[in-house]
């Protein structure tokens, strides 16, 4: 399943490659493209497919594990966690702000009001699978 997903990073970007990869995995998890229990591509195969240093993949996977998004089962591989481990409200808000930075500046450049930008965000969030409860 996860072998069909497209992963891509822009190495020239100022956002470290491992963070771009983390964001993509989290996006796929949030959108339901990756379901709990799904196996992520192996480090070796992803490094080859993405033409990236394998340490970048290792770093992304271990940060994702730290955040509770994936679990690493020794010898078997890396899997999407059953339930995304809960962050504290502060942690979650800090993370959301980080993710929103790019969106916010793009919205401003388009001349959008915060209300318009929030509406676009709401529409996109509603398109995603319902949050597990």
């Amino acid at each position: 399943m996860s072998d069909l997903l497209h992963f891509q990073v822009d190495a020239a970007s100022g956002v470290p490659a491992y963070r771009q990869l983390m964001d993509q995995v989290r996006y796929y998890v949030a959108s339901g493209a990756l379901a709990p229990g799904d196996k992520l591509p192996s480090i070796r195969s992803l490094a080859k497919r993405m033409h990236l240093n394998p340490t970048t993949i290792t770093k992304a996977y271990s940060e994702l594990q730290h955040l509770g998004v994936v679990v690493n089962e020794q010898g078997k591989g890396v899997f999407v966690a059953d339930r995304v481990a809960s962050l504290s409200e502060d942690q979650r808000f800090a993370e959301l702000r980080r993710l929103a930075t790019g969106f916010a500046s793009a919205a401003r450049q388009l001349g959008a009001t915060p209300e318009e930008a929030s509406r676009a965000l709401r529409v996109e969030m509603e398109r995603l699978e319902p949050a597990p409860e």
Partner: protein
Amino acid sequence: MEPAIIETRGLTKSFDGISAVDDLDLTIRGGCAYGLIGRNGAGKTTTLRLLMALLRPDSGSARVLGVNLWTAPASIRERVTYVSQDQNLYAWMTSRELQHYASHLYSRWDARYADHLARQFSLPLDVPVGVLSGGEKRKAAILIALAARPDVIVLDEPAAGLDPVARRELIDALVEVLTDRPDSTLLFSSHIISDLERIVDHVGMMDRGRMLLSGEVDELKTRMRRLQLIFEGDHPPPGFRLPGAIRLEIDGPVVSAIVRAEDESEFAGLEDRYGARLHMFPLGLEEIFIEMASATRDGRVQEEEVVS
């Protein structure tokens, strides 16, 4: 921490009184993929040649695998391979003959891997190397450097003169090395950052023979930002200072700056601290290099800052 596999201390070399490498300290640890970047004439090639003992330093030291390669026994030297910009391969030999020849020079020569690389590089094996294109010659030389299964691989401008497909083939071969032999250390120089940025985990930025900035790529990217502060009113408050700024421009109430923070978390508090609207943009390696080089030329930052 891994031991230093490549290390220079106070390395200095000049040619006819013109300084090429000036008091250079460089440390590369085992398992690193290190990109030495800088403009043409920054001293990258001279540094590599000093490390490979193809040149003698005026002063200072250059060590690879803990030893000076001038005096190292063959058993150490064969663990280090080097591909220069102008490959001096025997023009009359075919690539197949060159590989056969190299297999006698390197005790760890891996013939199966050499075949695999030749296929991966689509390298013609049975024509004299002298008639190959520049890109093919380079691939023939890189093949030998990799199939010797060294601990340290040093490549001078490996991507220069390669077309985009050949560059991708090279990167894929290096990704394979990094995956299959994670202990090997890779050092290459480049004046273009783009493609090789996919595989480097550490960079050293050289300018005029000196190290401008070195460190872990992710660390550099998370600690440097272009930012814009927009104050209420006509100008920033009196006494306004922006710590860590290596470039700062003020245009009415708008402050544009390049900032290098001690820690990424410093950026989070900026908005509240100044009560101004803040926009922040990440910087790629190329932009970091350009900003650091111009700031250093203007004497705005100290040279030889090390981040990791």
